[in-house]
């Protein structure tokens, strides 16, 4: 067996997987997006750009997604970084395991159930009732963009914590000592050593959270009361309620295009931040 054949054989399983699970479905979606809705719903073959011309009718869905997904990612990062830093740098091994488990535990329960808990916490009998006692009246939290943002941060936080934790945990503590020996202030050590060394973790965390958020539909539906509409919700409605598969496919294609563009730009930015360090892992 030549080296070449062996290489092909090794790539074959993953290649087949990609073809069957990614390329084929995406091709179907792409083809459908040029079709038309059948009279009582579904798809009939056609070649028209009508569905793409209709995309502006989903402007709000794209706008909400493109505002709340980066905002949610950023907020998750701001909350996750100090937590991951504390866990990786300042926590003893004994406590580390326990605290890491505590970060994972919420993942053992369905996000559906956990979001229902937030409905109660943010609803009239939850936080607003407490605020009422201290004299702040008539606060409305549930079914707002704020509630959706809270749900998003809560739901996706572990996905942000772990990559950052891993990158900080691998950090060579001798570098920090060296920095301090050379007279750097701890804050300056953090900015000049720790932060740049953890950039790959931040990049991975942000990417994971952002990509998943772009397709989110459950949290906006539950905590936004059907009023904070994401592209994910538009897709659910187009396929299940309007049964307009052609239009739904066009919206899906648009979402994929936006994701490809933003993620590519983002990866460029990260590799620039990593500077000339050719060895720096991206993910």
């Amino acid at each position, binding site marked *: 067996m030549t080296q070449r054949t062996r290489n092909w054989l090794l790539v074959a399983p993953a290649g087949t997987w990609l073809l069957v699970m990614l390329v084929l479905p995406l091709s179907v979606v792409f083809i459908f997006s040029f079709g038309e*809705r059948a*009279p*009582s*719903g*579904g798809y009939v073959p056609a070649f028209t750009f009508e569905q793409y011309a209709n995309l502006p*009718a*989903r*402007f*709000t*869905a794209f706008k909400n997604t493109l505002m709340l997904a980066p905002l949610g990612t950023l907020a998750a990062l701001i909350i996750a970084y100090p937590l991951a830093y504390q866990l990786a740098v300042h926590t003893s091994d004994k406590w580390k395991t326990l605290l890491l488990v505590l970060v994972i535990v919420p993942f053992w329960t369905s996000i559906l159930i956990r979001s229902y808990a937030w*409905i109660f916490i943010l*609803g*009239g*009998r939850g936080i607003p009732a407490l605020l009422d006692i201290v004299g702040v009246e008539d606060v*409305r939290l*549930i*079914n707002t963009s704020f509630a959706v943002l809270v749900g998003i941060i809560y739901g996706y936080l572990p996905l942000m914590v772990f990559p950052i934790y891993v990158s900080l945990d691998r950090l060579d503590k001798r570098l920090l000592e060296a920095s301090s020996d050379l007279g750097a202030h701890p804050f300056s050590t953090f900015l000049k050593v720790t932060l740049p060394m953890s950039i790959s973790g931040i990049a991975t965390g942000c990417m994971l959270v952002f990509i998943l958020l772009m397709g989110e539909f459950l949290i906006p539906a539950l905590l936004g*009361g*059907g*009023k904070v*509409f994401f592209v994910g*919700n*538009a897709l659910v*409605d*187009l*396929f*299940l*309620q*309007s*049964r*307009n598969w052609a239009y739904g496919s066009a919206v899906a294609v648009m979402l994929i295009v936006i994701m490809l563009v933003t993620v590519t730009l983002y990866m460029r930015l990260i590799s620039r931040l990593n500077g000339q360090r050719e060895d720096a892992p991206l993910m």
Partner: protein
Amino acid sequence: MSDDTQITKKKFMEELRSYQKGSVTRRHFLGVTGLGAASAVMGTALPGLRASPAFAAGDIGDRVVLATWPNYHDQANFDMFTDKTGAFLQVNVFGSNEEMLAKLQAGGSGWDVYVPTNYTITTYVEEGLIEPLDVSKLPNYDASAFDPRFADAGTVDGVLYAVPKNWGTTGFALNTSHTGGKAMDSWKDFFDRTMDDFSGRTMVHDYQLTTIGAALNYHGYSFNSVDEKELADAEKLLIDVKPHLFAISSDYQPSMRSGDAWMTICWTGDGKQLNTDIPDIQYILGKEGGELWSDYYAIPKGAPHTEAAYALINFMLDPEVNAREVLAHGYPVADSRTNALLPEEMLNDPILYPAAELLNALEFGAAATLTDPNRAELMARFKSA
């Protein structure tokens, strides 16, 4: 099971043997061994606990899959069905007829019985998604016992495709403790007050039929209208109202019960359930009109367990079973045999059986209303506005 009734290993094996030989019933076996409650939960996980059909009423297989609506059945009846036939009942709950249709159009739903609403049945027939019913397998179905008003839609071109389950109306539920004593009896009140003192307290269905229908009724148009100008008026109203809504959702009971929402578009049974628990919440039919509907039992084409499907429908049509259903969910039936078994106060309940002039103002949904692409798109625009 308390400790003093704890069954010994030996006794358990004895009972298991006699159950396997068929000398005791499944119910006796489950009761004595304490597995009854466990098997209700674990029926699918442990197939061995399910009765083999050979000992049951007939050979209908080990399971039946039902696609239906929320708050719409009595679990005790389901358990009884499993006890009698050995077929475990798996339930899928849906939010709208559109969603149900979409699932069937996509294929491979795996359902044996589903519960379509009157105006969808012709579409199912046209799309070849529904099985004609063999009446000989439904001895409990007596066509003459049903009010034709609520049974007619089950027959298309002289072929019986579906038998009536329940009927009801679509109105709104209102928490009267917030009205300031001013009466509300119309869709005009519903939307006007939402934009006024009910701002942030009203819910509408996540369902084009009823939400657009109510907005059309506001303007005095037909609930079923697909007229472009009339739909445009309805859309404008909905867009104006949207900032004042608490939510767009068909799951309105939790918010009405917690007091977060004060008013919502509402179906009969939910109105009854809310009113029973919280008397301040009243169920109101808009005097401009609204929806009158009837749900049916039907079998989708290619159902994997057809015999079990017939057995389930037949079981549910038993007047005594049906009466227990009504007592549990509060939706009226069109079957006079069932009504004869219901308590008088239920039959006189104005939520369940509205006054004739209110009822006559209502319209059945039309097939075109379900499939109209403009209505579907209007709803989507309203939600993404």
